[in-house]
């Protein structure tokens, strides 16, 4: 359950997360702006509202797990880990630099706070299922949240894992689909039809809810709703905007993975900072 003041606080944190994402994506190198920004509100709600997670003890065996299956959006997770103190904010600008712990795609053995390696798309939900099955075998009560790209569902393994979660009644598994409607080159639906998404997940045996993935109250409410499905995995289909928060990036496939000039970067920083200032004034 959230209060109105919770929502204000979480929106401020999401604005701060976006500032950190843009700040770490330095000019001169290609970065995955679009998917990191579309996922920012979802990642904020997970780390700062929903998950049982102790930043002082990121190896706590009972912690809830978050798997960034759309691994290219890991900067959003790096930003969250920096905001909660698992990573130092000073480390963020080393993103994708030689010898950095902050790899272009998640490397759990290098970066504190990461729970798995992803990057090749389609694999994260199976991994989340494995964690949930392990939790069951080990008698632990943690939950596993897995963020999946909408285009990522074109990988067949997603549907293999969807069937596995339903077969084993993995009520502790929550799949969140970042439905930002764009993949690397084009509209997500341009090469394979992605709808009806709700009906697809439901037909695979999942409890499904579709929400506005930038409405913080709706996100928190949906995450709470997943607790009410103990015998069934839950899917939240979150309609989002790729590049959300930076107007010249919004809805543009070219900002899936691209470098920006110093000037554009300054403009993006200014917009993200202004949004944060507006939120802090609330």
């Amino acid at each position, binding site marked *: 359950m959230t209060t109105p003041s919770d929502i204000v606080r979480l929106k401020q944190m999401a604005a701060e997360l976006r500032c950190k994402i843009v700040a770490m994506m330095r000019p001169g190198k290609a970065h995955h702006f679009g998917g990191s920004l579309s996922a920012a509100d979802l990642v904020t709600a997970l780390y700062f509202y929903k998950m049982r997670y102790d930043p002082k003890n990121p190896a706590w065996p009972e912690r809830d797990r978050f798997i960034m299956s759309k691994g290219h959006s890991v900067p959003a997770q790096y930003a969250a880990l920096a905001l909660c103190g698992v990573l130092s904010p000073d480390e963020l600008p080393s993103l994708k630099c030689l010898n950095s712990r902050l790899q272009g795609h998640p490397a759990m053995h290098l970066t504190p706070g990461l729970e798995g390696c992803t990057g090749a798309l389609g*694999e994260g939900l199976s991994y989340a299922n494995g964690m949930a099955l392990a939790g069951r075998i080990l008698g632990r009560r943690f939950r596993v949240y897995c963020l999946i790209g909408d285009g990522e569902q074109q990988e067949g393994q997603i549907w293999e894992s969807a069937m596995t979660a339903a077969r084993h009644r993995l009520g502790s598994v929550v799949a969140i689909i970042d439905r930002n409607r764009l993949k690397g080159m084009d509209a997500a639906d341009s090469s394979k039809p992605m709808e009806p998404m709700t009906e697809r997940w439901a037909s695979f045996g999942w409890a499904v809810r579709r929400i506005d993935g930038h409405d913080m109250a709706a996100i928190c409410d949906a995450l709470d709703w997943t607790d009410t499905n103990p015998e069934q995995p839950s899917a939240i289909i979150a309609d989002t905007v790729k590049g959300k928060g930076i107007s010249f990036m919004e809805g543009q496939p070219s900002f899936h993975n691209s470098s920006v000039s110093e000037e554009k970067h300054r403009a993006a920083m200014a917009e993200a900072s202004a949004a944060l200032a507006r939120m802090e004034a609330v």
Partner: protein
Amino acid sequence: MTTSKETRLAYGEALRELGKERREVVVLDSDLYKSTHTALFRDAFPERFIDIGISEADMASTAAGMAACGLIPFCNSFAIFVTGMCYIPIRTQIAYPSLPVRLVGSSSGLTQGPDGASHQSLEDLALMRGLPNMAVISPADDLETRQAVFALADWPGPAYLRLGRYPVPRLFGDDYRFVVGKAARLRPGREVVLIATGHMVSKSLEAAELLARDGLDAGVIGMATIKPLDETAVREAAQAAALVVTVEEHSIIGGLGSAVAECVAEMSSAAPLLRLGVRDRFGESGLADELLEKHGLQPGGIRASVLQGITRLGKGKK
């Protein structure tokens, strides 16, 4: 020789035994548990067994998630599927973070037999050997298989265990202790050294007998661990012998022959190397023994290749 046994059955029995001792051992299979013999584990420990269905990639990734939570998963399918169908999950989610998942390839090599090329694994060693952090193990008999299963329970990183459905005689004595990365010197011999793995160890021992009748002193090394390779054993053989011969039920590209070639290529002086195996071809339907015969991997074929090799390549011998 004692009664013959398939290594896949020895594995199933050992796994069940390991399951009694180690509560963190879990087993995943992809609809082949009666063939892989993980049904033995399933019947003993149903709560730690998952038949994931016909979805090998899902199996590998699921196992990775389980390993990240402290379990030791053994993933099972036919050798070519457990390596080939899930290569990218193995690479990204298991090998890269070095999680202790065991990939177990059953019915490996040509001796998978009548099912033909789609089911025969002649490239699986190459696929797994190329991955950083991955140990690659191909035991020769039931006893070595059993010991490999127990050794893998304590191996810190990921591993690929290659097994067969071809009966092999007991080759090792009860005092044998398999150690990951250590070769077994099974037969002394200085003129030719046969370095063999898997089913080809017993075939090579038989070939060495035939060669002895030809007056050629041939030794045999069982190389159960293809990675990390026992380079000391390889160097020792390549320094002393007139010819080194690798024998494997796998393509000569990327498996044992390649591993040994890479090792001897970096020696200042080494015996010439002859690689026996499948010569860059796909398999086909046939009985196991027919296929081994066709590819020159029965004792007679190995003998003939060695005799030709010693004439062509051997350093001032015969």
